[in-house]
C-alpha cells in the first residue's frame, strides 16, 4: 500500500500543477483525449470549449471526482494521486461547483465549519470560524455576514460563501466551473475583483466560462478544448474575442440581430394588473401590465430578483396569480394549470432547467416528449409510440446538434449546455404560438448562442409572440422589438428598440424614471 502524497501532513504550496495525457472515457464518449494542461502560481487560466468539449470532466478529474483512464497529475514536478475530493483538498485544490452544496438552514459560519478536517473536538468553535471568515472576507473583498442563514442569501453571495469555504480550507488552486453563468452583470464585476485579489495573494485559478469578454478581461492564459482534445494553449495577451471564438468552434461566429420590422399581429399574451407572491411569501409581482403580439419579441431587462422569474412562472401556470388577469390568445388563463396552457400553444424555456426543464433520470427521448407525452405524434390511446419517438428524437439531436452518445442516454449525463439544448429542442420544435424564454442561452457556448438567437428570430418570423427574459443586456438589445424594464415587481417602462439605449435602461433598472 503506497502512502499517497495527499496524506502527508506538511504540503508544499502549489507552484506548478500539470495534468499530462489525461484520457477519460464514458460509455459512448471520449470526454478527454490525451489532454495536457498546466497552471502556475498566481495565474488565471481560462478553460474554453464548446458544450460537451470536456471541460467539467477534466476539472472533476483534477478534483478527484472521476478517475481518469490514463494520464497523470504532477504538483511541482511530483506525481500525485487524487482519488477523492478529500485528497484534492489536502493538496490545496478547491472547487466551486456550479451547483452549490450549502445547507440552507445553517448560517454562513456553520456551513464553513461543516466537515472541517481540523475539528479535533466534536464541537467546533463557531466564534473562531466566524472571526476567521470575517478576516478572509476582508482580505478578499468577499463581503458576507457570517451569521446570515444561507436561505437569506442571493446567488452571488452564496458563491462567495463557497469561495470562502475553499479559502478557509487553505486552497492554493481554485477551480471555478462557470461561476459567472448565474451572476448578474454587477455581481460579475465584483467577482472579477475578487479573482484579481486572489491572484495578488498568489492563488492560482482555473476559470471556465462561455463569455469571451471575461476571458479577455481577467485571464493570463487560455486553453481551448474541442471534442475532448486540446486544440490550443496560449497567453491571452493579444487575443481578441474573435480569435478565441474561432479556436473554440473552428469557424467565425456572427451573432444575428433583429433587422426586419415586426409584423404586428394580434395580441397573443396579455397581463392585467398581475400580482403574485415569491417563494418566500413576499409580493414579487405588484401589478404587471404587458402585451405581446404575434411576430414580436419583447425583451425583459432588470436586475435579477425583481420579479422576472415569477413573471415567467405566472404566465406558464406554474405560480398562482393572487390578483389580476392573464389572457393567452384572447382566452383568460388565470389559474389554469400548465397542461391547459400547453394546449393553447405555449412553450416555456425555464430558468431552472435542472429542476423544471428536464428529468435527469429520464433518457433524452423521454425528455423530448415531456410536454407532449400524451398526444400525437408521441402517443395514441394512452400508448407511447416508441418508434416515432425515436425518429423524432434522432432528428432533433441532429438539428440542434445535441452532443450525446445516444437518445437513450440519461439526460443528466449530458454536459450542461447540451441539457439546455434538449430543453430548447423540445420547446422550439413545437412551433409555439407564445414562447416564454427565460435565460435561454445561460451556460451554452457561443456557437449554440448563435443558433438559439437565429432560432428565436425564426420563431418571430413565423409569427410567435415571444417574451425573452434575460440578464444579458446585449442579448435583450439585439433581439427585442420592445424592451420592458422590471423593477421591484413592476414594469417601469416599455421602450421601443430604437429608443432603448443602455444608459436609459440602466436608470430604469435602478428604479429611476428619466425625465
Amino acid at each position, binding site marked *: 500500500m503506497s502512502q499517497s502524497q495527499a496524506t502527508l501532513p506538511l504540503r508544499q504550496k502549489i507552484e506548478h500543477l500539470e495534468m499530462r495525457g489525461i484520457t477519460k472515457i464514458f460509455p459512448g464518449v471520449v470526454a478527454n483525449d490525451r489532454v495536457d494542461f498546466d497552471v502556475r502560481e498566481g495565474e488565471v487560466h481560462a478553460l474554453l470549449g464548446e458544450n460537451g468539449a470536456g471541460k467539467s470532466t477534466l476539472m472533476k478529474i483534477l478534483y478527484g471526482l472521476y478517475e481518469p483512464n490514463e494520464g497523470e497529475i504532477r504538483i511541482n514536478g511530483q506525481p500525485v494521486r487524487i482519488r477523492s475530493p478529500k485528497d484534492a483538498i489536502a493538496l490545496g485544490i478547491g472547487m466551486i461547483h456550479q451547483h*452549490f452544496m*450549502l445547507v440552507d438552514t445553517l448560517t454562513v459560519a456553520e456551513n464553513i465549519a461543516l466537515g472541517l478536517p481540523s475539528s479535533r473536538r466534536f464541537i467546533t468553535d463557531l466564534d473562531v470560524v466566524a472571526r476567521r471568515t470575517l478576516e478572509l472576507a476582508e482580505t478578499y473583498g468577499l463581503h458576507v455576514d457570517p451569521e446570515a442563514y444561507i436561505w437569506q442569501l442571493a446567488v452571488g453571495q452564496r458563491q462567495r460563501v463557497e469561495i470562502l469555504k475553499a479559502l478557509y480550507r487553505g486552497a492554493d488552486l481554485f477551480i471555478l466551473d*462557470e461561476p459567472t453563468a448565474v451572476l448578474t452583470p454587477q455581481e460579475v464585476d465584483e467577482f472579477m475583483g475578487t479573482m484579481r485579489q486572489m491572484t495578488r495573494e498568489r492563488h492560482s485559478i482555473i476559470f471556465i466560462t462561455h463569455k469571451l469578454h471575461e476571458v479577455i478581461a481577467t485571464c493570463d492564459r487560455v486553453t481551448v478544448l474541442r471534442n475532448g482534445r486540446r486544440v490550443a494553449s496560449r497567453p491571452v495577451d493579444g487575443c481578441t474575442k474573435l480569435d478565441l471564438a474561432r479556436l473554440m468552434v473552428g469557424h467565425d461566429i456572427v451573432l444575428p440581430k433583429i433587422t426586419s420590422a415586426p409584423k404586428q399581429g394580434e395580441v397573443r399574451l396579455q397581463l392585467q394588473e398581475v400580482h403574485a407572491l415569491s417563494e418566500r411569501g413576499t409580493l414579487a409581482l405588484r401589478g404587471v401590465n404587458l402585451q405581446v403580439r404575434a411576430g414580436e419579441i419583447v425583451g425583459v431587462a432588470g436586475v435579477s430578483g425583481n420579479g422576472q422569474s415569477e413573471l415567467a412562472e405566472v404566465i406558464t401556470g406554474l405560480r398562482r396569480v393572487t390578483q389580476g388577469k392573464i389572457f393567452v390568445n384572447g382566452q383568460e388563463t388565470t389559474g389554469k*394549470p400548465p397542461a391547459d396552457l400547453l394546449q393553447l400553444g405555449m412553450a416555456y424555456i425555464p430558468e*431552472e432547467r435542472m429542476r423544471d426543464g428536464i*428529468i435527469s433520470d429520464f433518457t433524452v427521448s423521454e425528455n423530448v416528449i415531456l410536454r407532449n407525452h400524451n398526444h400525437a405524434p408521441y402517443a395514441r390511446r394512452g400508448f407511447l409510440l416508441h418508434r416515432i419517438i425515436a425518429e423524432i428524437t434522432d432528428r432533433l439531436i441532429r438539428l440542434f446538434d445535441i452532443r450525446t452518445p445516444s437518445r437513450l442516454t440519461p439526460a443528466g449525463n449530458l454536459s450542461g449546455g447540451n441539457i439546455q439544448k434538449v430543453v430548447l429542442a423540445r420547446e422550439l420544435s413545437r412551433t409555439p404560438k407564445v414562447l416564454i424564454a427565460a435565460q435561454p442561452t445561460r451556460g451554452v457556448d457561443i456557437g449554440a448562442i448563435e443558433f438559439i438567437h437565429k432560432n428565436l428570430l425564426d420563431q418571430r418570423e413565423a409569427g410567435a409572440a415571444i417574451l425573452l427574459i434575460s440578464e444579458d443586456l446585449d442579448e435583450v438589445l439585439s433581439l427585442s422589438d420592445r424592451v420592458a424594464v422590471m423593477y421591484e415587481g413592476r414594469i417601469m417602462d416599455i421602450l421601443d428598440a430604437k429608443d432603448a439605449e443602455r444608459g436609459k435602461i440602466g436608470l430604469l433598472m435602478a428604479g429611476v424614471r428619466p425625465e
Partner: protein
Amino acid sequence: MKRFFARVLNARQLDNFLPIVAALAAFVIGAGMLLLMGTNPLTAYRAMFSGAFGNQNALAETIVKAVPLLLIGLGICISFRAKVMNIGAEGQMIVGGLISVAFGLAVDWPGWLALPLGLLIGFLGGAAWGAIPGILKAYFNVNEILSTVMMNAIAVQLMNYLLGGPLMDPQQAQALGKLPETARLNEAYHLARLLPPTRLHAGVLIALALSFVVYVLLFHTTLGYRIRAVGFNPFASRYGGIRVPQQVVIALLLSGAFAGLAGAIQIYGLNYRMITDGSPTGFTGGAGFNGIVTALFGGLHPLGAIPASFFFGALLVGANAMQRVTQVPSSFVTVLNGMVVIFVVSAAIWKELRERQRRMAFATETSRLAELASVSETPPQG
C-alpha cells in the same frame, strides 16, 4: 488489496448484482450464527434447499408462496416508482380478501361468473383501501408511510372483528374452539389446481400475466410515463403538464389493487375460506411486507419481480423445512429472513445513492451532510 476492492466497488455492473450479493451476505452471516448455535450450516442450508426445491410438492409450495409476493411486488413497483412509499400492502391484502370472501359467500351464481367477479372485487377493495392514503397524501399532504401503516392496523381490527363475528363460519360459531374463519366457498368458485395433488393453483398464471401487463403499463403507456416522471422529478412533471397529485393517487390505488387481488387469490385459489390466527399477519403471512422486499430485490422492475418472488417463496418454504430437520429455533428463520430484508433494502438505498452520486459527481464531504439536511440548490451550469 484496497485498490482491488475500490475497483470492484466502482464497477457499475456490480449494481445489478447487489441484491444477490446482499442475499449471499445474509446467508454467510446466518451460517456464522448457526455455527454458534452448534448446528452445521451445511446441513441446515441443505435442508432448506431440498425443502424448497427437493421434490414436486416442495417446488409447488414455493410457487404457491411466491404468488402473493409477486402480486404485491408488482403493486409496489408501481407505487415506489412514483416515490410513493406504500407500506400498506398488508391492510390492502386483508381488505381485498375480506370483501371478496364476503361476496363469494353471499352470492349463488355459476362459477364462471362468480370467480372472476370475486377476484375483481378483491382488486377493487384493495384499490379503495390504497386510494384513501393516496388522497390524503396528494391533497392533504399526509405522509403516506404513516397513513398506510395506520390503515394496516385498521384492516387487522376489521378482519378480527368480521372473522370472529359477522363473517364467521356458522359451524365454528357453534363449536367450542371458535376459530376465526369464514365458511368454505362454493366448490364452483375455486381457482383450478394445476398439478394435483400439490396445491399449485392457477393464481400463478394470473400473476405472471400481470407482470407482463405491469411492464407494459410502466414502460409503454403514457400513464406509466407519468408515474415514473412524478417519481423522478415532480417539478419538471408539473411543467410537463402532468397533474402530480392525481398520479400519486393512481399509484397508491393501483398498488393497493394488486395487494387486494393477492388477498382474493389466496382465498379463491388456496384456502377457499378466509382464515386468521388472530395475529396481525395471521391471514397475509407477512406477504405485505415481504412483497416490498420482493419488489426491491427485483430492482422495482415488474419482470425482475418474478425471479425475486420465487427466491423469497423458496426462502420461506425452505426455512420451514430447515426448522423441521435441524431444530434451529423458529426465531432463527425470522432472523435470517430479516437479514436478507435489511441487506437487500440497504443495498437498494446504497445503489440509489451511488447512482445519484455518479450522476452528479458532487461527492464532496459535505454532500452527505447536505443530503440529510435540505440542500440549497441553484441551477447547475456545467
